């Protein structure tokens, strides 16, 4: 019997914080707001740690029923929580990184007039994210799922007076909704076929099923639909378009929601549903392909971006692609591993970028930065750690997780691996490009003091002038440092066997992912590679290990190549990029404009929809057909009435004529009746 962990407290605490700040924050001092926000998010973190400490004593998965929610016939969905290794990791990441970013935000947002609102939203986000993570059924997960979308909407549009921010928020929400559409359909299928949305019941029912290798069956459909949902939330092709725009939000938001936590919800959901996916090879393939393509595609866009946050945004999309690639090849634990390390280093990168922006007074264009290395050393060093980590330089967190993914991808298909490696190279290139452009060379921006008049509402710090480029306050630097440390050492929890580790991370997640594969799991398909490999893990053949090492070397080489190229182009010979760009004229333009995908969507979906709704549906069908028909019926009746009035000519003889004719008809009729 499990002890009562009171898991429900973990999400409720931030909700309380959000409510307190939301309702009373306006009249409270900043200090009070800060206290409330940090206390409740910190308390959630503490609770999570507490749970983690008691973890070994639990028999997993731990389930907790809190209250009834929906009851309809035999179907029910309750406020029930579910804790296993997977959710524990997510719990720690979300509360941990979340808390750090709360701390960071105190400094970052201090001068914003809506300080309280920001923390209220941020806490609200924590609430929904934790609900998502802890949910014991898909519907509760869906609450979190939609809820984080709401929080994201609110936070992206935090500076709502700016049209672009408002639009970006709306776009994020709507695109997410498109994904949710798929998610919902998947849920309906689950309800229809399994009668429940509770994880244990659904998975319990799915477990005995065999893999749908012959074709696309129910599970495949469900899997693909879940993936549609994941695509929306985790910004995968074709629904990734909202994430770059989401950078309109304050930078801590980008760090927390659009890098570390919310966007990984898709990965979490797919991993959570691994039981289904493992039995739906086609769905898994879809996941893998989407992930791979996204990884590559977003990376290429990242090359040409000049906005420091946009680069990171595309990098996020790309890294999420990696995670899906991992899930797609059945390496769920690798995906989660990367999710965790990514949370560290991408959170760090964003926060550092925020610190940079803070330093240069709200400027986000890298072309106007440069040479900041000495001016903001803390930022520089922490960011270096992050860059190295994401680029996959050996020894840092990103290296281990990415390497694990690539290796497992290769086991599935060399194509994934190849794209993955190329993407790794591109990643390394654009990250170092960012690094060089920001911190090296000469400072290219205007004097900070002058830049405030322009587009400075962009960030909180436009509002006040510090004068000169300066390092961020300690409250911002400390989270940076912590995250930098994590980015460096975080990978060591999952050092793969080939590198001399024993992949403890994978083992930790083992109970979740292993042993759930279909009974007849030995035949073809993507899911099959992972599972048998784990079982034979101990006495791993030397050849496999050496192959793995070879591949590791190749990816390290790719990373270094990227570094070198970036060094060449952006440090050594900064005039080159322009030439390269000119020589690649059309293509470069396309990349700069993100392949015109936004424009394409606008032209293909949005504009026809709006124009069609306006012209055809509203003015056409509604006004000119239906309403016109109704009005015409009325007018027609009046018209007839007007004509009928002419019967009433006022002339007595005419009246008598009518009477006579009428009587003639009546007489004729009656005679006919009589004769008949």
């Amino acid at each position, binding site marked *: 019997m499990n002890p009562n962990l009171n898991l429900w407290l973990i999400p409720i605490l931030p909700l309380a914080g959000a409510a307190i700040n939301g309702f009373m924050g306006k009249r409270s001092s900043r200090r009070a707001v800060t206290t409330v926000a940090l206390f409740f998010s910190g308390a959630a973190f503490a609770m999570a740690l507490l749970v983690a400490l008691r973890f070994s004593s639990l028999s997993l998965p731990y389930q907790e029923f809190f209250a009834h929610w929906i009851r309809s016939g035999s179907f029910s969905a309750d406020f029930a929580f579910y804790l296993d290794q997977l959710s524990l990791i997510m719990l720690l990441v979300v509360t941990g990184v979340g808390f750090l970013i709360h701390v960071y935000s105190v400094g970052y947002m201090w001068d914003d007039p809506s300080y309280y609102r920001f923390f209220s939203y941020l806490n609200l986000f924590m609430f929904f994210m934790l609900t998502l993570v802890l949910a014991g059924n898909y519907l509760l997960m869906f609450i979190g799922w939609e809820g984080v979308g709401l929080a994201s909407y609110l936070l992206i549009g935090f500076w709502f007076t700016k049209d672009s921010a408002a639009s970006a928020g709306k776009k994020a929400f709507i695109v997410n909704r498109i994904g949710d559409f798929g998610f919902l359909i998947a849920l309906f299928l689950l309800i229809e076929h399994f009668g429940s949305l509770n994880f244990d019941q659904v998975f319990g029912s799915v477990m005995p099923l065999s893999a749908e290798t012959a074709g696309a069956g129910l599970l495949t459909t469900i899997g693909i639909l879940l993936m549609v949902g994941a695509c929306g939330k985790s910004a995968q092709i074709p629904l990734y378009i909202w994430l770059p725009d989401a950078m309109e939000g304050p930078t801590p938001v980008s760090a927390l929601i659009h890098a570390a936590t919310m966007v990984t919800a898709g990965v979490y959901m797919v991993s959570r549903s691994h039981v289904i996916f493992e039995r739906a090879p086609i769905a898994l393939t879809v996941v893998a392909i989407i992930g791979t393509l996204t990884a590559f595609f977003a990376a290429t866009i990242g090359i040409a971006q000049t906005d420091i946050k946009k680069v990171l945004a595309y990098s996020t999309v790309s890294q999420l692609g990696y995670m899906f690639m991992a899930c797609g090849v059945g390496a769920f634990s690798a995906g989660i591993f990367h999710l965790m390390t990514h949370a560290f280093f991408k959170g760090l990168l964003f926060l550092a970028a925020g610190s940079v922006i803070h330093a240069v007074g709200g400027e986000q264009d890298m072309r106007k930065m440069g040479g900041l290395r000495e001016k903001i050393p803390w930022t520089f060093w922490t960011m270096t750690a992050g860059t190295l980590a994401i680029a996959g330089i050996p020894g840092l967190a990103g290296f281990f997780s990415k390497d694990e993914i690539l290796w497992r991808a290769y086991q599935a298909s060399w194509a994934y691996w190849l794209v993955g490696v190329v993407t790794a190279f591109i990643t390394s290139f654009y990250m170092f490009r960012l690094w060089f452009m920001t911190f090296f060379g000469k400072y290219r921006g205007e004097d900070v003091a002058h830049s405030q008049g322009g587009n400075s509402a962009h960030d909180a710090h436009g509002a006040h002038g510090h004068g000169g480029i300066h390092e961020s306050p300690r409250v911002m630097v400390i989270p940076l440092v912590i995250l930098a440390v994590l980015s460096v050492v975080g990978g060591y929890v999952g050092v793969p066997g080939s590198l001399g580790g024993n992949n403890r991370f994978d083992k930790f997640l083992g109970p979740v992912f292993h042993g759930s594969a279909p009974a007849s799991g030995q035949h073809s398909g993507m899911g099959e590679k992972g599972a048998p490999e784990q079982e034979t893990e101990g006495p791993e053949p030397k050849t496999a290990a050496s192959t793995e090492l070879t591949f590791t070397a190749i990816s390290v080489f790719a990373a270094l190549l990227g570094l070198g190229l970036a060094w060449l182009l952006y440090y050594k010979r900064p005039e080159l990029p322009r030439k390269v760009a000119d020589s690649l004229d059309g293509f470069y333009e396309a990349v700069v404009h993100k392949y015109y995908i936004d424009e394409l969507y606008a032209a293909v979906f949005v504009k026809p929809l709006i124009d069609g709704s306006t012209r055809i549906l509203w003015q056409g069908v509604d006004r000119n057909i239906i309403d016109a028909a109704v009005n015409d019926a009325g007018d027609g009746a009046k018209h007839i009435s007007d004509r009928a009035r002419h019967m009433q000519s006022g*002339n007595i*003889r*005419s009246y008598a*004529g009518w*009477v*006579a004719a009428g009587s003639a008809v009546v*007489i*004729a009729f009656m005679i006919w009746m009589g004769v008949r």
Partner: protein
Amino acid sequence: MSFHLILFLAFGAVCVGGAVNLLAQRHPINSALSLIAVMAALAGEYLLLGAEFVAAVQVIVYAGAIMVLFVFVIMLLNAGEEEETKGSRIAILIGVPGMLIASVLMAWVVLRRSGTESVEIGALPGPPTDIAQLLFHNFLLPFEVTSVLILIAIMGAVVLASKPESRSGKVD
């Protein structure tokens, strides 16, 4: 051809002629005289059917009193020949043909039903005593009620024919 039929036809011819003449004449006084002729001829027909009392009343009341009233009003209002105004197409286009069709149908009905039945001359003598018997017994109530009718008619005539100025002088 019996005497009865000859008389019927003679009176009938006057009736038909009078009726047609009523329609044909443009001056109302001529129409009125035609109508008197019709009524007189009808009185003859009544006699043929034995309705002596009715015939007498027909001449006295109808041809006498009522038609005098008509002539009197025509004279009073100095009605001239009627103008051929194009007031109503409906009456001509719908009413008259409709009525003609109805007449034909009626004729058909009448001929179909009672083609074989015939009435003798003076078939049902209606002497005043017998009439009175009915009138003051079986039809006592209708008879009494006609007094109300006549009262109304008199009052109505008084109200409508009197000059409205008699009271409207007070209207501002």
